[in-house]
């Protein structure tokens, strides 16, 4: 890519990790403030007030919002470039961020549980490539904590179970997770494709800012219905009761086999840490 060097990509990745770990995206903050205004339950209010105070302290002092800085996921939206190695840039940024105390050393061997101490290791960090959007490059970092990731579920429904089956499965997954994923959560639902594609879609759905609804009307309606149904159940902030169990539901889909209906649910905790930068023609726009 003309104009962007390997060094700059690495620097951008490190800055994105710093921003994601210590600041909450404005749309999530606004949704949490709205949630506090709607809660009457004193226990729900204690939790949401603490969350908002935590956000303020973290931003003011440059401290990680949550000690579980999760696994960092990098999404690169770019044309292939022979001069750039985004995976290597991300790995070097992750090692630096771990040294700085921006990321907790979280990665371990899955069976021996040995921790290399630098958040790297086989398959780490997680890097995904998305189709380019114009000339520039866009990098997004999402920090995915284990509390929310551990309650992910996939169901291979039958086509006959249809949208009702999806609804029941998605609501049950969130309600049964209780306080584990640190509600109020953002709910990503991926439907269609194959088993693993549905989960990739559920995770991608979490990148969509909260106010942005699905562009297609039936899915937009489904998102709204799921959101209301989940919040009616009363699980509430931290699973300790209240009106706000989720801040939003985002659905993404792909076509699937005529005999299949894969549905996956991937949750993100209220500390929905994501940050993006768009680099085009020498201009860097941070989001």
């Amino acid at each position, binding site marked *: 890519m003309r104009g962007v060097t390997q060094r700059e990509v690495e620097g951008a990745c490190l800055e994105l990790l710093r921003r994601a770990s210590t600041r909450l995206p404005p749309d999530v903050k606004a949704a949490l403030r709205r949630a506090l205004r709607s809660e009457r339950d004193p226990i729900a209010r204690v939790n949401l007030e603490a969350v908002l105070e935590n956000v303020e302290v973290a931003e003011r002092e440059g401290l990680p919002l949550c000690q579980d800085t999760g696994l960092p996921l990098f999404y690169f939206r770019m044309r292939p470039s022979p001069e750039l190695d985004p995976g290597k840039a991300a790995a070097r940024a992750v090692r630096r961020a771990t040294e700085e105390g921006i990321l907790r050393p979280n990665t371990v061997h899955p069976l021996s549980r040995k921790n290399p101490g630098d958040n790297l290791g086989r398959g780490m960090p997680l890097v995904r490539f998305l189709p380019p959007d114009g000339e520039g490059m866009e990098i997004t970092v999402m920090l995915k904590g284990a509390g929310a990731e551990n309650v992910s579920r996939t169901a291979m429904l039958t086509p006959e179970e249809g949208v009702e089956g999806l609804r029941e499965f998605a609501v049950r997954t969130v309600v049964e997770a209780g306080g584990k994923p640190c509600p109020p959560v953002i709910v990503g639902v991926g439907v269609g494709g194959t088993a693993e594609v549905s989960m990739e879609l559920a995770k991608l759905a979490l990148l969509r800012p909260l106010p942005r609804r699905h562009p297609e009307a039936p899915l937009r309606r489904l998102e709204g219905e799921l959101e209301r149904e989940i919040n009616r159940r009363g699980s509430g902030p931290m699973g300790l009761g*209240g009106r706000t169990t989720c801040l939003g539901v985002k659905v993404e889909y792909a076509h699937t086999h005529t005999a299949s209906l894969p549905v996956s649910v991937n949750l993100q905790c209220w500390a929905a840490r994501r940050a993006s930068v768009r680099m085009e023609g020498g201009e860097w726009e941070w989001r």
Partner: protein
Amino acid sequence: MRRLSLPLGKEAGMLRAGDLVFLTGEVVTARDRAHLRMLELLSRGEELPVDLRGGVLYHCGPLVRREGKGWRVLSAGPTTTLRMDPLLPSLLPRLGVRAVVGKGGVGEKTKGVMRRMGCVYLAFPGGCGALAAKAVEEVRGVHWLDLGPPEAMWVLGVRGFGPLLVAVDSRGGDLYERARRGRVEGARG
């Protein structure tokens, strides 16, 4: 709202689900690996590096940074207790703790054991790591760093550590259960 000093005595048993508590004193962190190691040592009749009688077991894997010869805690919110829950019925009585701090609550068997011990479960708001770190005055010790910093056992001096909600009290009161039963009033469906 109550401000309590550690170690706790019988006053822990007087706390009721829904009470708001702030703690000052010493808390000890542990998560998955440290729980396994504690049980292993205790079953061999060996001593633990820290005496937890009357103390507080904090389910937390803090984010720390070395500063000079010591450590600074940068973020230290709770981790999910339910992962360690199967070990708690045999571990808690041997530790003699008066409170467990975490998130997500405990299972039925653990609840029964806590009731007999006069021990309560305190929920710290999940994800509020920066807020918790502000209450940490000093790192008094660290054990088992070979497990990696998140899984090690950190002895933390805290002041005004909270907000902590009494989520499970020693009479069987349980806010999580209440939330599971109760739907939002006026709700349909």
